[in-house]
């Protein structure tokens, strides 16, 4: 056996001193971790709080955009545009109808104008007939001749008056026809132009509102991405919380290891003041070897847990940092779209410009109404004159009948008179045919005027109502924009604070270095002990664990400690599941009288494995 392995009193004292020194070092180390973990905990708390605040801001952005209780401002604006399109369409149809009606008027007037020529031709023939009548009458004696001349003169006078009046009326009608034609042509032109501008205007409005909506959706999507990042941060924080609990757990483990060291020192005490007997020597070596193995294993597990905690905390902070940087990148983009004034201003403008087009349509209706009044007056006069004309032609017919009776023996004269009568009948019939047409036109005008007035009234009312809604929409959109701007602007400093807190936390993690230092020393000590004493005097490994090593277990409180102990002794652990760490039990029991504070409902989520309800 190597000299170093001999358990002389000096050697035992040396071992005990080193063990006790290591015990103190471990306690000091354990205590030193507390402040660092508390600092990390405070920083983690700050990170969690900032992240929650960011999440709240992101939620606010989304709720402002979606809108409540009025509903989404953008939806309202789009619906308004649809309403404007519908009203414009109805106006356009009404306009088309009026144009069509005026076309009808114009056609009727043109037809009446054509009748004028035929009527004037008939009058001319009657005049000619009158002259022939005079010629035939010249052959008569003075008395009948003079009577006939007087009749012919009377007829000529009447005809002249009639011709003048007819000419005047038809001239008026002609002027009217021209006006109606001009108005109709202008309406047609306006109709086409207005339809085109309205369509272009509405298409442009649609595009502007869509651009605004797209900008908002982009902002929303950035906010949603930010929100996902926030949720990832929350997950990272939870991981860190689990890791930071290890300070308390490892502190207890180190306490138990310290208690184990005390047990070893106590066991060796017998050899500190005298030489050991052969049996005592074998016993102490056996005990040292096995206890050393156990302590070594417990220390390794404890240090590994600390290294693992450091790794977890660093990973968590790195994840938070990554999410924060991603968010920092997104927020300015979100702001950029929201603050795009041009897009927003055009969106608002688009809601109002279409009204200008409709206002000019309403002024057209008013011009039409004025013209229909003039038409009505003209047709009324025309109808009265035509009726008077027909009456006068009847008078001439009566005169010619008297004449026919008095000139039985003058066949030439009789023929002239007969021809005159035929011409007069024709003229009368023509006049009587024109009159009802004119009357029908005249009687249709009040209806048209009423329709136009009604159209004007309704258009004004519809556009006024839309105008109110447009103003409401503009207010909503403005408000939404201001709220969004305020939210997005407030997110940036939060993100910066979060990034700063993460950086400070990352720099604060120092304990892995301290763990490395103490672990190399502590493990080296127990590795040496194990190496020196794991075999007997003959160098043969001990077949069974030392009986007293088992007593180390009375210091353990954790399932993991038992498992490590058993594994280090090469035996299967009685505790099957090392993963009781983290388990929850709620003690299921009878009603609350038997189990104070027992849970009331059973419809909750299933409990984790480390939970038991009593």
């Amino acid at each position: 056996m190597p000299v170093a392995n001999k358990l002389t009193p000096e050697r035992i004292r040396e071992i005990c001193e080193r063990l006790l020194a290591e015990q103190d070092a471990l306690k000091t180390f354990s205590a030193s971790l507390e402040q660092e973990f508390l600092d990390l905990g405070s920083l983690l708390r700050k990170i969690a709080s900032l992240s929650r605040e960011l999440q709240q801001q992101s939620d606010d952005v989304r709720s402002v955009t979606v809108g409540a209780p009025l509903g989404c401002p953008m939806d309202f604006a789009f619906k308004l545009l649809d309403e404007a399109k519908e009203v414009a369409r109805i106006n356009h149809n009404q306009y088309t109808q009026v144009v069509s009606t005026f076309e009808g008027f114009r056609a009727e007037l043109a037809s009446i104008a054509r009748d004028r020529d035929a009527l004037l031709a008939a009058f001319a023939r009657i005049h000619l007939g009158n002259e022939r009548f005079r010629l035939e009458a010249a052959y008569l004696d003075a008395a009948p001749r003079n009577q006939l001349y007087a009749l012919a003169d009377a007829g000529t006078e009447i005809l002249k008056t009639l011709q003048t009046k007819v000419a005047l009326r038809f001239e008026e009608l002609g002027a009217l026809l021209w006006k109606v034609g001009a108005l109709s042509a202008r309406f047609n032109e306006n109709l086409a132009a207005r339809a085109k501008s309205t369509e272009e205007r509405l298409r442009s409005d649609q595009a502007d509102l869509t651009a605004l909506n797209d900008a908002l959706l982009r902002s929303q999507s950035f906010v949603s991405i930010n929100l996902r990042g926030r949720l990832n941060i929350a997950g990272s924080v939870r991981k860190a919380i689990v890791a930071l609990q290890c300070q308390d757990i490892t502190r207890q483990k180190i306490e138990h290891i310290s208690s184990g060291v005390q047990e070893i020192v106590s066991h060796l005490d017998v050899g500190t003041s005298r030489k050991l007997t052969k049996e005592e020597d074998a016993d102490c070596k056996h005990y040292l070897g096995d206890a050393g193995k156990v302590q070594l294993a417990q220390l390794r597990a404890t240090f590994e847990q600390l290294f693992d905690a450091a790794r977890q905390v660093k990973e968590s902070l790195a994840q938070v940092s990554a999410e924060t940087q991603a968010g920092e990148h997104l927020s300015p983009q979100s702001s950029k779209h929201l603050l795009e004034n041009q897009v927003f201003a055009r969106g608002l403008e688009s809601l109002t410009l279409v009204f200008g087009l409709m206002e000019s349509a309403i002024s057209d209706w008013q011009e039409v109404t004025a013209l229909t009044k003039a038409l009505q007056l003209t047709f009324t006069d025309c109808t009265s004159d035509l009726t008077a004309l027909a009456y006068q032609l009847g008078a001439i017919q009566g005169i010619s009948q008297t004449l026919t009776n008095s000139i039985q023996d003058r066949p030439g004269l009789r023929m002239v008179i007969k021809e005159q009568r035929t011409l007069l009948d024709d003229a009368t019939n023509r006049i009587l045919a024109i009159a009802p047409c004119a009357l029908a036109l005249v009687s249709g005008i009040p209806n048209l005027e009423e329709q136009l007035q009604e159209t004007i009234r309704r258009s004004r009312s519809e556009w006024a109502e839309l105008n109110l809604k447009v103003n409401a929409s503009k207010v909503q959109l403005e408000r939404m924009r201001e709220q969004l701007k305020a939210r997005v602007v407030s997110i940036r400093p939060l993100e910066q604070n979060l990034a700063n807190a993460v950086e400070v936390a990352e720099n604060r993690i120092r304990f892995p270095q301290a763990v490395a230092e103490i672990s190399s020393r502590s493990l080296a000590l127990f590795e040496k002990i194990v190496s020196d004493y794991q075999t007997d005097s003959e160098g043969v490994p001990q077949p069974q664990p030392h009986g007293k090593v088992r007593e180390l277990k009375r210091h353990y409180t954790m399932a993991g400690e038992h498992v490590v102990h058993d594994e280090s002794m090469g035996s299967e652990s009685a505790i099957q599941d090392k993963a009781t760490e983290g388990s929850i039990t709620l003690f299921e029991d009878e009603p609350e009288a038997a189990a104070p504070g027992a849970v009331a409902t059973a419809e909750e989520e299933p409990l984790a494995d480390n939970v038991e309800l009593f």
Partner: protein
Amino acid sequence: MKRIMTIDDSPSMRQMVAMTLESAGYEVVEACDGNDAIAKLDGQEFHLFLSDINMPGIDGIELTRKLRSLEDYKFVPIVLLTTESQPEKKTQGKAAGATGWIVKPFQPNDLLNVVKRVIR
């Protein structure tokens, strides 16, 4: 707002418990051991006690017995949050009147789930 007392001799553990509970909107009162917990009761209403077991002075199981003997806190849920996992200890806790048992380390969501379940 529901008030919870967390009792643990480890400041860092109390910190993690408080952070978890406060993030869910609970008010948290910290006590560093059993005696401190009793002193801080002060007649206030508490909706839950969350206690470690191994503490100097009065341990968690003794604290549970004491709380159950107090009229105002007889029916308030007590959940023991501990590194202990041995069945015998658990039986002791249950017999003392504890409502539940959580072995450290806890997952924040699991802790909140338990709190939600036991608090009325």
